[in-house]
C-alpha cells in the first residue's frame, strides 16, 4: 500500500467505508503506563475489586461491577471456606472428611458451569465467566449462614437450634437466589426468565440442604 499513501482524494470521488473505533476502555488500564506498574499496585487494585464485589452482593442493586469486571477469586475463597466448614460432618469419620471436601467443591463448580451452559443455550447474552462470577459471589449469604449454623450448633443441637438454623438458612437462601437472579435474569429474553431462574433456585437449594443437614461429630 506504499504507493497509495501519497494519493490525494479528489473532491468528486465519493469515499465510503467503515471505520471502527474501539469504544470503551482500552483494557485494564487507561493508558500504557500500567504495563510497568509496581506489583503492589496490581495486587491492591485486584483486592479492592474483589472487596467491592462482596459489597455488591450484600446490597444487590443494579450495578455493572459484578458483571463487567468479573474475577473468580471471590468464588474460590467462598467455595474453599464453605467446603472447610462443611467437612467432618459425615457418619463415618474413618477418613478425615476427604471425599466430602472434594464433593462440595465439585458440586459448586460443576453446578455453576451447568447453570451457565443452560443460560447460554437459552440464548442469554451474558458471557461464560461473568455468569460463573455472579453465581460464585452470590454464595456469600450461604457461607454466612453456614458460619451461623456452626456457631448455633456449638451451643446445642436440639429442636430450638434446628428451628433457628432453619430460619437462618431459608433467609440466606432467599437472599442468594434473589441476588443472583437480579444480575442474571436481565440478560435473558422475557419469556425465558423462569427457565433460567429455576436451575439457580435448585443450585442454591442443594447448597442450603447441605448446610442445614450438617451435623458435626
Amino acid at each position, binding site marked *: *500500500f*506504499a504507493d*497509495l*499513501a501519497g*494519493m490525494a*482524494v479528489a473532491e468528486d470521488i465519493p*469515499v*465510503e*467505508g*467503515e*471505520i*471502527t473505533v*474501539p*469504544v*470503551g*476502555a*482500552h*483494557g*485494564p488500564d487507561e*493508558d*500504557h503506563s500500567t*504495563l*510497568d506498574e509496581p*506489583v503492589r499496585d*496490581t495486587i491492591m487494585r*485486584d483486592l479492592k475489586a474483589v472487596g467491592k464485589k462482596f459489597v455488591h452482593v450484600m446490597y444487590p442493586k443494579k450495578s455493572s461491577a459484578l*458483571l*463487567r*469486571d*468479573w474475577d473468580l*477469586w471471590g468464588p*474460590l475463597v467462598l467455595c*474453599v471456606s464453605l467446603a*472447610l466448614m462443611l*467437612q467432618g460432618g459425615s457418619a463415618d469419620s474413618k*477418613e*478425615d*472428611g*476427604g*471425599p466430602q*471436601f*472434594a464433593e462440595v*467443591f*465439585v458440586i459448586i463448580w460443576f453446578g455453576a458451569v451447568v447453570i451457565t451452559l443452560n443460560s447460554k443455550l437459552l440464548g442469554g*447474552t*451474558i*458471557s*461464560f*465467566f*461473568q455468569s460463573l462470577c455472579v453465581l460464585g459471589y452470590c454464595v456469600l449469604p450461604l457461607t454466612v449462614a453456614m458460619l451461623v449454623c456452626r456457631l448455633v450448633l456449638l451451643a446445642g443441637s436440639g429442636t430450638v437450634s434446628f428451628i433457628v438454623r432453619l430460619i437462618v438458612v431459608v433467609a440466606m437462601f432467599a437472599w442468594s437466589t434473589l441476588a443472583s437472579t437480579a444480575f442474571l435474569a436481565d*440478560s435473558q429474553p422475557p419469556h425465558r426468565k423462569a427457565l433460567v431462574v429455576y436451575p439457580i433456585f435448585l443450585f442454591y437449594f442443594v447448597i442450603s440442604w447441605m448446610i442445614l443437614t450438617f451435623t458435626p461429630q
Partner: protein
Amino acid sequence: RHPLATFFHLFFRVSAIITYLFCDWFSNSFVACFVTILLLLSFDFWSVKNVTGRLLVGLRWWNQIDEDGKSHWVFEAKRVSTTAASTEAEARIFWLGLIICPVIWTVFFFSTLFSLKLKWLALVIAGISLQTANLYGYIHCKLGGQKNISRITSKFFVTADVPKRQTGRISEDRIEEHGKTCIR
C-alpha cells in the same frame, strides 16, 4: 533484570507440583494438602498472568466486556527493539516453566485416573485448566505479536484500509491501538 519475577514465576508452579507429590510427608490431612495446592495454583495463575508475563516477556492477555455485554479476549504484545542476553535467558526460563508444568500435570491426571485415587482428580483437573489457560493465552499473544509488525505499518494508510475493516475484528484493532502506544 527481574530476578524476583523469575523466582516467583517458577516458585508457585514448582511448589504446587512438589506438594502434590510429597503431600503424605507434609501432613496426614487430605484437606490441608488440597487447599494448599489449590491456593498455590491460584497464586501461580494470577502471578503468571498479571506480573511475570509482562515483566519477563512483555506479553499480556485479558478479557474485556464492552457496553453491549459481549466479551472479547484481547492479546497484547510489546514491541521490543533490543534483546539483551539477560532478557533472552529470562524469556527462555519463562517459556520453559510455562510449557513443562502443564505437561507434568497431564501426567498426574493419567496416573491419578489409572491408580483410581479419584479424590485428587478434581485438583489435578483444576491444575491442568489453570496452567493450560496461561499457556494458551501467552502463545496466542506471541503469535499475534509476530503478525503485528506489518499491521502497525499498514494502519497509517487508513484510506486504503478502511473498506476492509470489519466490526468483528475488534480485538485486533485494539492490538493496533496498543501497538502504537507501546512503541518505546
